[in-house]
């Protein structure tokens, strides 16, 4: 008998008989009742508490703060997609910005060393965020592959302010994740870190050392005229 | 932790289950429990044939033997009076583990019924007697040591401190890591003596560092353990069962 069948047989021919499966009440992980402002405020508080940075921008003018971030951080080579509106707008805005825009629509086997050693930052869109935990959620695509938010030392993520849900449970349920999962789905809640050296926090172990979230607001950004 | 009990009104009579440690080593603590209850106008019945709740055998895995001992105790409380136990460990055994020991047997219903009437002493004094104490003692600092059984099996972290808080001349100080085990654990202390010793050493140091002049507890196992360590080190801090402490200071 194969291992598979032997294992399943043992599980099904249980000594103490069949088990009853209790129903679950998920109320405790949903229904927070936060306004959009409060969701965004919580998101920002959590992600900045773990060294994430948040920049507020308006939907119409977000590439200007993007260029500032790139200049501030000394980014010379930026990896980003082409098709997604975020990537397309960024490419257009940065065409003459003195930042080399790296192509990512090629199989990693052809440029792995380059990505690991000579890319300063990766820019991606996001599908939304979670207020309760300060998390971004992303489903990488051929246009914006998995590694550009992991390998370069800086990850710049663009988040639309009206896509912040209250809890992770809400994201899973409201966006119908059970209808079909992508190759890879990610929650990103800050730059890479570890506390393995005597519980002292250190950043940028394997993933990015820095995470900047550009929050796009419909209309003007908070603090702008 | 057991679920919150619905406490009965103050009864006319209770049974006292004295526990084997009190019977053999600290009988005055048992008497002081009786005195406290009688002072509240409650008649205390002490079934003569009581011996031990069976916990030592139970904790060691000798459940056949524990069951035989427990079965003998089940017969001692025929009337529906509450059963007051001056120990979190024995109280926990009877309330939590008697139903488990007899599940699926002829004695299942009886065990459940008896378990439902078991109260630890401080629990009974606070939630049933609504004790009102007048302190006649000298001012002093004491530390409360709530046993793990009282704290976690019976959910009674507050009752001991609540009683001590009523004593106007007593300053209750809290030792560091008060919720951590003292290392007694019944046979644990003799099966794993070095680990147990490390735990009681930390506990005595914490109590000493708190500035307490004495420690008070609801469990004689803990008292024997912590008090025995202090005595070995020739330290002046002594332990007292909470029944004795309360009686001494209010009579």
């Amino acid at each position: 008998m194969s291992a598979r069948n032997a294992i399943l047989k043992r599980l099904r021919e249980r000594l103490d008989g069949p088990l009853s499966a209790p129903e679950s009440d998920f109320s405790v992980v949903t229904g927070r009742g936060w306004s959009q402002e409060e969701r965004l405020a919580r998101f920002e508080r959590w992600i900045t508490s773990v060294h994430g940075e948040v920049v507020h921008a308006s939907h119409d003018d977000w590439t200007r703060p993007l260029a500032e971030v790139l200049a501030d951080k000394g980014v010379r080579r930026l990896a980003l997609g082409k098709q997604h509106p975020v990537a397309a707008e960024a490419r257009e805005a940065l065409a003459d910005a003195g930042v080399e825009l790296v192509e990512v629509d090629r199989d990693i086997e052809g440029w792995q060393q380059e990505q690991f050693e000579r890319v300063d930052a990766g820019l991606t869109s996001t599908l939304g965020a979670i207020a309760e935990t300060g998390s971004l959620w992303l489903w990488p695509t051929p246009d914006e592959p998995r590694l550009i938010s992991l390998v370069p030392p800086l990850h710049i993520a663009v988040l639309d302010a009206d896509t912040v849900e209250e809890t992770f449970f809400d994201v899973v349920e409201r966006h119908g994740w059970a209808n079909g999962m992508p190759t890879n789905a990610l929650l990103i809640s800050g730059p890479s870190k570890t506390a393995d050296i005597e519980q002292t926090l250190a950043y940028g172990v394997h993933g990015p050392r820095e995470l900047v979230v550009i929050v796009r607001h419909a209309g003007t950004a908070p603090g702008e005229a | 932790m057991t679920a919150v009990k619905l406490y009965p009104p103050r009864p006319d009579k209770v049974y006292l289950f004295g526990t084997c440690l009190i019977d053999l080593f600290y009988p005055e603590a048992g008497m002081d429990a009786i005195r406290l209850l009688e002072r509240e106008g409650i008649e205390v019945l002490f079934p003569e044939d009581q011996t031990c709740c069976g916990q030592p055998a139970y904790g060691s895995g000798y459940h056949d033997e524990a069951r035989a001992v427990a079965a003998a105790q089940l017969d001692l409380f025929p009337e529906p009076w509450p059963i007051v136990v001056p120990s979190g460990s024995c109280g926990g055994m009877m309330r939590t583990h008697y139903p488990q020991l007899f599940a699926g047997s002829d004695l299942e219903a009886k065990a459940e019924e008896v378990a439902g009437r078991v109260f630890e002493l401080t629990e009974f004094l606070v939630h049933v007697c609504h004790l009102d104490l007048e302190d006649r003692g000298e001012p002093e600092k004491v530390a409360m040591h709530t046993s793990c059984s009282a704290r976690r099996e019976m959910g009674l972290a507050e009752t001991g401190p609540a009683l001590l808080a009523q004593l106007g001349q007593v300053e209750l100080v809290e030792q560091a890591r008060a919720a951590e085990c003292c290392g007694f654990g019944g046979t644990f202390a003799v099966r794993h003596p070095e680990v147990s010793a490390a735990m009681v050493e930390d506990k005595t140091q914490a109590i000493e560092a708190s500035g307490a002049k004495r420690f008070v507890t609801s469990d004689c196992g803990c008292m024997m353990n912590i008090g025995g360590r202090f005595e070995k080190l020739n330290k002046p801090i002594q332990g007292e069962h909470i029944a004795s402490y309360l009686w001494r200071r209010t009579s």
Partner: protein
Amino acid sequence: MSGQTPGVQTYTPREFHRQAHDALGNPQIRANFRKAMDGLMSKRRDSFDDWDLETLRELGANIRLRALARLPDLLEQLEANCEANGIRVHWAEDGEEACRIIREICESHGARSVIKGKSMVSEEMHLNAHLEAAGIEALESDLGEYLVQLNEQTPSHIIMPAIHLNTDEISEIMHEKTGTERTRDVDYMTAAARQQLRERFMAADVGISGVNFAVAETGTLCLVENEGNGRMTTTVPPVHIAVTGIEKVVEHLRDVPPLYALLTRSATGQHVTTYFNMISSPRKEGEHDGPKEVHLVLVDSGRSRIYQDDELLDTLRCIRCGACMNHCPVYTRVGGHTYGTTYPGPIGSILSPHLMGLEETKDLPTASSLCGACGEVCPVKIPIPDLLVRLRKESVGEGRGNVPGAGIKRTRREVAAWKGFQWLATHPGAWRSGTALAGKLRALTPAKLGAWTDYRTAPKPAGTTLHALVKRHQASKSHEPNSKSHEEER
């Protein structure tokens, strides 16, 4: 074969007492663990501030019990959905078989080096030793695991593998094994490790990871991490092998958020980890990165046996958070290596007897004062103290015999002692006389009473028993019903 990696410091559960003795006498170990556990306990407490914790734990327990109730069906559903998405599913009855499966996948790709994300089940099966013996280098990428591997040790905690090492010790290890400077600068050491491991991610032929939750509904493998090495391990190498115990399945995607919330807070007091990585297929047509081949190895290794017994089944609820050991007064004092098992602390003591047999692990179920701190914090409400007592019962042969090695601790001497206790406690007349006699002979109490008196004074019986005092008290009351007889007796 013991499966111990050659050159790695060997601890075994059989030597618990000696290992505990050594640990207790090591001030560095005592200090490292005390500080670490205090920190973890307080972080956990703070992280549940805004939560109705008891309701969340109840939901967690409920989700795990539902998954276990439906386990065989869910495993089949998981397999079907994984395969439909291109993840190849393999089944292994034991660790040996799992090692062989993994090795064969590696060999079929001509793999010389493997990079590993954290996987406790791979430790359980001694996978690294098996691969090394076949000439395949297995390098740990989680920083704590990496340090432990450099130091030729095994992990001492299931979440924080290097928790037994302090900064100076780590600096020394990195200096000696990788040539870094001796320093207390944690950022420097972290940057050095980042550099060293980046090269290995790029060069690895295969990435091997564990699985935190395997979702049957969608065939999705979920991994929890802070460092990014998990994502690296499961994305960079051309082949990814995920290995998990069969009990880690959950039914629905929506079951994941509550368990994730419980896991991060119970483990390290974090409201969330840096990354939550959910993998449902290998690289698809048109995608540009990710492994082209993904395998899932489902390992039984004694779990289906635990599954048979209603009481023991609760052991399988575990989501491997480590809260139990963080709160255990015994673990805090002796550290993880003392247990000599892959899983130490309370979960280790209830699980290892099933994985290794009670003959090997007979001192573990008793290495607990039954204080209950573990059960109080378990996010899925495993009744750990009850399971410890159940294993003690099995150890002395009075259980159902559903654990290998049952009866190993039954000795004639101890049986006689407990039978004696039983007789005395069921013969009240003899009890009363016996205790009264002990009282009379109290002066003869030996000053030395075994291990007890090594550390404490011997308890002496009181002069009279409670039974006797009560009798006196009742007699005096019947003579003077209205007097303050209780005060006069003092």
